[in-house]
């Protein structure tokens, strides 16, 4: 009886903890061999499964009768479903190992193995509805470049300094930039109102950039993201030996605020609904990504 194909792994697993199930696993093992040889199961395991389940269903007699009568057919259905499930799991594992995403390349669907990363379901957003990101509408005005300015390939990142997912994305992103010198990063800050200090941090970074220390300031904000407070930004400026008066002046300037607002408006206009969002050629990735995912997208450009 084919049901032993399912019974064997189930009882073998339970058998790790109980002798009762070890005996059943042994019966399933014998039954499996006989089934493969087109012989009827002689351990009685199929009868046990059929009878016990039928008895449990007796509270609804029609269901019990149906189960009893079509047990062989149901067994085949369960076995086929189980085999499909095993095949699907195997395929997912293969994808996960190869692409870092169990759903395969270019997928942004939910992945049970990596729910917070490869699937891109998790991001910082004020939008309740997800929108389609239009690559053609990406506006790089105000973007800060990391890496070689003349590098032929680019990753565009929309991030937010108070978003822990943006912070989480940093490691893999920096690794890609380090390993691929012909790739540069365009970073566009999109401060979200839901996060405290996101606007202040964005403005402070712009002002640090005016003194040539954007990326040092950028890295410092993410490093201390959890402890940002009113005095953090000036303290960071001091730590990076910036001119505090120039820094303060910049912070007070309307142009700084305007630049940030413009970046945010541009991002929303392009359909960006959450941070971090990566645009690599025509590939749009939302949420923190594994190194392999970013690398694969970059390689596609080359």
């Amino acid at each position, binding site marked *: 009886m084919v049901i032993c194909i399912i019974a064997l792994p189930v009882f073998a697993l339970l058998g790790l903890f109980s002798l009762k199930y070890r005996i059943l696993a042994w019966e399933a093992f014998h039954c499996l061999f006989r089934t493969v040889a087109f012989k009827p199961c002689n351990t*009685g395991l199929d*009868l*046990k499964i*059929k*009878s*016990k389940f*039928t*008895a*449990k269903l*007796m509270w609804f*007699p029609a269901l*019990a*009768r149906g189960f*009893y*009568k079509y047990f062989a057919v149901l067994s085949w259905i369960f076995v086929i479903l189980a085999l499909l499930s095993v095949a699907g799991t195997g395929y997912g594992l293969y994808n996960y190992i190869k692409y870092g995403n169990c759903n395969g390349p270019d997928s942004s669907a939910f992945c049970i193995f990596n729910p917070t990363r490869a699937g891109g379901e998790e991001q910082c957003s004020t939008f309740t509805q997800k929108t389609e990101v239009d690559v053609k509408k990406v506006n790089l005005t105000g973007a800060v470049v990391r890496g070689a300015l003349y590098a032929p390939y680019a990753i565009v990142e929309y991030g937010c300094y108070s978003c822990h997912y943006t912070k989480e994305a940093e490691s893999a992103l920096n690794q890609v930039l380090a390993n691929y010198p012909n790739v540069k990063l365009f970073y566009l800050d999109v401060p979200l109102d839901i996060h405290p200090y996101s606007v202040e941090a964005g403005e402070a970074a712009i002002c640090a950039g005016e003194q040539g220390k954007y990326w040092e300031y950028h890295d410092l904000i993410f490093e201390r993201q959890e402890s940002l407070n009113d005095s953090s930004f000036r303290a960071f400026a001091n730590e990076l030996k910036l001119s505090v008066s120039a820094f303060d002046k910049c912070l007070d300037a309307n142009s700084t605020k305007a630049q940030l607002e413009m970046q945010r408006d541009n991002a929303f206009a392009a359909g960006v609904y959450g941070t971090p969002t990566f645009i690599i050629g025509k590939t749009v990735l939302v949420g923190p990504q594994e190194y392999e995912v970013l690398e694969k997208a970059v390689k596609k450009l080359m």
Partner: protein
Amino acid sequence: MNVDKIRKDFAILNGKNPPIYFDNACTTFRPNSVLGKMNEYYEQYPSCAGRSNHRFGTRVTEELIKARRTVADFFNAKKESEIVFTRNTTEGINLIANALGLKKGEIVLTSDKEHNSNLIPWLVKAKSVGIRHETFKFGDLGDFEKKIKNVRLVSVVHTSNVDGTTQDVKEMAKIAHENNAVILVDAAQSAPHKPIDVRKLDIDFLVCSGHKMLGPSGMGILYGKQELLEKMDYFMAGGETVTNSTYTSFVPEKVPEKFEAGLQNYAGIIGFAEALRYLKKVGLGDVEKHEHELNKRLSDGLLKLGVKILGPEDAKLRGGVAGFNVGKMNPHEVSLMLDSYNIAIRSGMHCVHSWFNANKLAGSARASLYLYNTKDEVDFFLEKMKDIAKLAR
């Protein structure tokens, strides 16, 4: 007979969710008195009988004598020495098969519905010694008379474990003796349920098992007429089967010790005797009547559901046993489903493969009742059988 009072004597029937146990033809529950008596041996005098002179040895020897007397009384044997303690019915039959001195060409006659215990020993002897094994139709005295000529040993089951029907062993014994044959009765299924008087039946040997009659497992008895036992050879030899020995010779012990080699299962013997005392106190006649009543209720209920009963439909002819099949359902399915409702019955060929094979039956389900079963249990069983029977339609 007060069933409620009886049920209080069984620990297993007084716990939470007590089982509905209808597998008494396989083995029975044990009353507290039997367990207590066995514990008493281990706790108070765990020693050897007939060997040691100390107080423990003396006590166990006394208990052994008392136990043999109890068994002899229970079956109305002439002498206590006619009772041999064995492990079970199978060992008793094997003892006869090996110690009776059967020779090549001699005929052993059995019915066609014997438990493997009363079939395989003769098939083995047919191979090893060259005896002839023949069968007659179970319960058919005409067929029995036809086959009895030149038979050395008649070995028959008293009550069938398949369908509960009983053979007239008294008449068989008479016919056997008229034809110079000896008769061995397998009383495994009759001794627990009805009074047996070996002298009235005039049978030569009787075997039964303790575990089917409230006693411990691994304990049985062989009754044999003194003069026949004395003529028999050893079955197993060794400790306690001789009175003296040299490097080249030995002096055999008298019966029954001659057949009780090695240290015996004293706790089992003492427990078995206690079980017989319990049954005697309740009254086997009442037990038989109670089983008939319950079996009638159960059988009538099954017949109403369209279930086919093995053997006669009249429950009176089947003691406390109801063998049945539900349509074309596998009997194991029936027992497995009932087990889900805490009802224990037996299914399969009940170690009587030969009869089932000859009748082209895959087996049967079997409910077997005993003194502690109740009408309510039978009704609950029938209620569940009603659901199960619907599956077969």
